[in-house]
């Protein structure tokens, strides 16, 4: 089986739209979460979100923009940075040997909502002809393939909050088994619409607004945590067969070593310690890594009551006594929950942690929940931390647990 290198990374995120900006904010504990101030924010019980400062009009020609849902815009921008950074000359590398796997949770939610608004509220006679093409879940992956002429396998995974971790893991398999030489993989979501925000609000999973400091609303692993804050953006990585990357002198950021996939079967939302632990164990086994080699875990860490305690227990089940020695952080405390883009963005954060020997912090952790007793790197990044191998956890409503394990490149 072939080894898999990560040769490119690109992000559109609430912490900046380049990997460098994302890294700076992440390691400085700067939050991308703020009070939402728009036409509908007054209708939200908790008007907070992690918005990406992304201007589609500045990025795309007007005729093209009208065919792109915001989720596809994010995906194209992140893919462009990843492919450019990898220096991947598609034609030279053979476009049939390069595919695109993307994850998304809400797909073209903005397009759907705008269409419903036209149809049901404005009583329009017709909806926009591009509605289907913009709203379909596979639009982001398709646009990336079209943009670069990538004729290898093109798939979209929708497993809620683990969608993009699944996309990266499945892409890794394709390269490992020789079905592709390179894969563009990641996820995108643009869920900051009234309809989507209200739906999450009704589930009672959204954090209560901290009026004094809205950024402090999302408090993973805290005793007084009250839920997640939705975010928007995309993250895309270029995965490449190791030899292929070495031969063309590509920049290698890390090696993707392992991927574990398991399913909770007890409940549609309630997470399971046993099954989350199983995903971590499967990832370690496929990476041929012993638990004590893991130096950093980027937790799923949603700051919901249900997740953080269960994830802590699952980490303890897998790592036993050494669980307390591992730096574990939830970067969602800064960039929010990007749903279908979360796994990919946090995988990029995990790679940055290894590269910079710095564990990003879990922000706003003043009073830990007694149930959450690991080392969550509270409130400040930890520098000079030798992280040779790291893990990124992504769990989901619907039960698809996906865990990625990567190794630093010397």
């Amino acid at each position, binding site marked *: 089986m072939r080894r898999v290198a990560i040769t490119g990374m690109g992000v559109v995120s609430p912490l900046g739209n380049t990997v460098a900006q994302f890294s700076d904010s992440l390691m400085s504990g700067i939050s991308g979460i703020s009070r939402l101030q728009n036409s509908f924010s007054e209708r939200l019980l908790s008007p907070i979100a992690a918005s990406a400062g992304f201007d589609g009009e500045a990025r795309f*020609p*007007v*005729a093209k923009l009208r065919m792109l849902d915001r989720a596809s815009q994010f995906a194209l921008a992140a893919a462009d940075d990843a492919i450019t950074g990898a220096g991947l000359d598609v034609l030279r590398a053979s476009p049939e040997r390069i595919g695109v796997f993307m994850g998304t949770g809400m797909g073209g939610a903005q397009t759907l909502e705008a269409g419903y608004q036209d149809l049901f509220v404005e009583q329009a*006679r017709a909806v*926009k002809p*591009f509605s289907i*093409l913009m709203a379909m879940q596979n639009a982001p992956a398709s646009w990336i393939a079209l943009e670069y002429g990538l004729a290898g396998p093109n798939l979209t995974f929708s497993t809620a909050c683990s969608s993009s971790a699944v996309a990266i893991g499945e892409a890794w398999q394709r390269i490992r088994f020789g079905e592709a030489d390179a894969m563009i993989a990641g996820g995108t979501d643009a869920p900051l619409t009234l309809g989507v925000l209200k739906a999450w609000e009704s589930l009672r999973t959204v954090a209560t607004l901290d009026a004094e400091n809205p950024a402090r609303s999302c408090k993973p692993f805290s005793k007084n945590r009250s839920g997640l804050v939705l975010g928007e953006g995309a993250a895309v990585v270029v995965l490449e067969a190791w030899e292929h990357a070495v031969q063309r002198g590509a920049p290698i950021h890390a090696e993707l070593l392992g991927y574990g996939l398991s399913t909770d079967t007890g409940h549609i939302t309630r997470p399971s310690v046993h099954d989350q632990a199983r995903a971590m164990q499967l990832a370690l086994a496929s990476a041929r890594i012993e638990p004590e080699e893991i130096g950093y875990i980027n937790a799923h860490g949603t700051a919901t009551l249900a997740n953080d305690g269960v994830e802590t227990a699952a980490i303890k089940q897998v790592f036993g006594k050494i669980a307390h020695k591992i730096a574990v952080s939830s970067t969602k405390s800064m960039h929010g929950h990007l749903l279908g883009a979360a796994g990919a963005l946090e995988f990029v954060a995990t790679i940055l942690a290894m590269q910079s020997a710095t564990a990003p912090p879990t922000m706003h952790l003043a009073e830990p929940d007694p149930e959450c007793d690991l080392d969550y790197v509270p409130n400040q990044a930890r520098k000079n931390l030798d992280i040779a191998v790291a893990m990124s956890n992504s769990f989901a409503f619907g039960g698809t647990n996906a865990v990625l394990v990567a190794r630093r490149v010397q």
Partner: protein
Amino acid sequence: MSTLERLQELLVRDYGISREAIAPEMALQSFGVDSLGMMELLFEIEKAFGIVIPNEHVELRTVGQVVDYINKLAAEQGTAPHLAAQ
């Protein structure tokens, strides 16, 4: 405002081309309107001109042909395109 002027306004807005560049003989394909793009253009024309475009196949290749088609439908449907556009 004539039908051509109104159409020019729409094309400037939706395709980012300059008004001066839009002549009646200009091919729609030259600014990226293919068979799919045509669906979008017809949708915008319906809104802008207050006409209903029937589900029929019509060969429209140039800006001038589109203007003629709008005028023909407007006449049949009893709408004055230059008034509906206001």
